[in-house]
C-alpha cells in the first residue's frame, strides 16, 4: 500500500476485555514502532521492532501490553484486561533501515491511528 495502515480506526470496549490493534507497515520497511497518544498529550513510545524481534520494549506500560510482528510485515498490539486509563489513540509508524547500521535521519511514516475507548 501507499502508506501505513491501521485497523480498526475506532474501538470501543468494556473494562476488563482484551483488544487487538493491527498495523500494516509500508512494504519494505523493516523497522516498526508503536506509540500511545493520550488526549491533549504528545506521543509516548511503546515498543520498537526490527524485523520480527523487539529490541526495545521499554515503553510498554505494564505486562497487560504485548506486541508481536510477523516477519517484516503486520504487527499486532494486544492489551489484556483493559482499563479506562488505556483509552488513547495508538499510533504505528514504520521506517527503512540503512545497510550497515541505523541512521538517525530515517523518517518514520505514521499511520492514522486506532482510537481506543475503554468504558
Amino acid at each position, binding site marked *: 500500500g501507499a*502508506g501505513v495502515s491501521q485497523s480498526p480506526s475506532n474501538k470501543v470496549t468494556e473494562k476488563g476485555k482484551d483488544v487487538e490493534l493491527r498495523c500494516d507497515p509500508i512494504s519494505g520497511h523493516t523497522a516498526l514502532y508503536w506509540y500511545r497518544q493520550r488526549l*491533549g498529550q504528545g506521543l509516548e513510545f511503546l515498543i520498537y521492532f526490527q524485523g520480527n524481534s523487539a*529490541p526495545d520494549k521499554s515503553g510498554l506500560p505494564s505486562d497487560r501490553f504485548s506486541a508481536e510482528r510477523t516477519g517484516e510485515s503486520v504487527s499486532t498490539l494486544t492489551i489484556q484486561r483493559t482499563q479506562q486509563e488505556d483509552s488513547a489513540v495508538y*499510533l504505528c509508524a514504520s521506517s527503512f533501515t540503512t545497510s550497515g547500521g*541505523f541512521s538517525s535521519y530515517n523518517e518514520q511514516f505514521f499511520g492514522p491511528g486506532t482510537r481506543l475507548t475503554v468504558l
Partner: protein
Amino acid sequence: AQSVTQLDSHVSVSEGTPVLLRCNYSSSYSPSLFWYVQHPNKGLQLLLKYTSAATLVKGINGFEAEFKKSETSFHLTKPSAHMSDAAEYFCVVSRVSGGYNKLIFGAGTRLAVHP
C-alpha cells in the same frame, strides 16, 4: 537525556498573519530535530527536519524552522497563516538508542487560524 519543551499549548492567529510555534530542546550532543503536523483524523506528517546541515530548514506548506544552538531552540514559523494550517504541531528530538532512531515528542501546540 534528550527532551523537548513546547512553550505554548495553544496558539491562535488570524489568517494572513505570521505563525510562531516555540520549541526548546535538551540534548547532550548535536541533535536531530523535527516538526510534525497532525490534522484531525489524519496521521502525523513530517513538516521538516534538522540534521546538522543548514541551520535554517525549509519544510512543506511554507513552514520553516531555525536551529539556534546558543538558545537550544527550534522554533517553527510561517510568514502568513492559512486556514488549512489549523492542526496540532509536535516538536520532536531524535536520538539513536540501541541502534535505532528513537523519537521523543513534545506535548504539542494546537494552532487555531481565524478568518
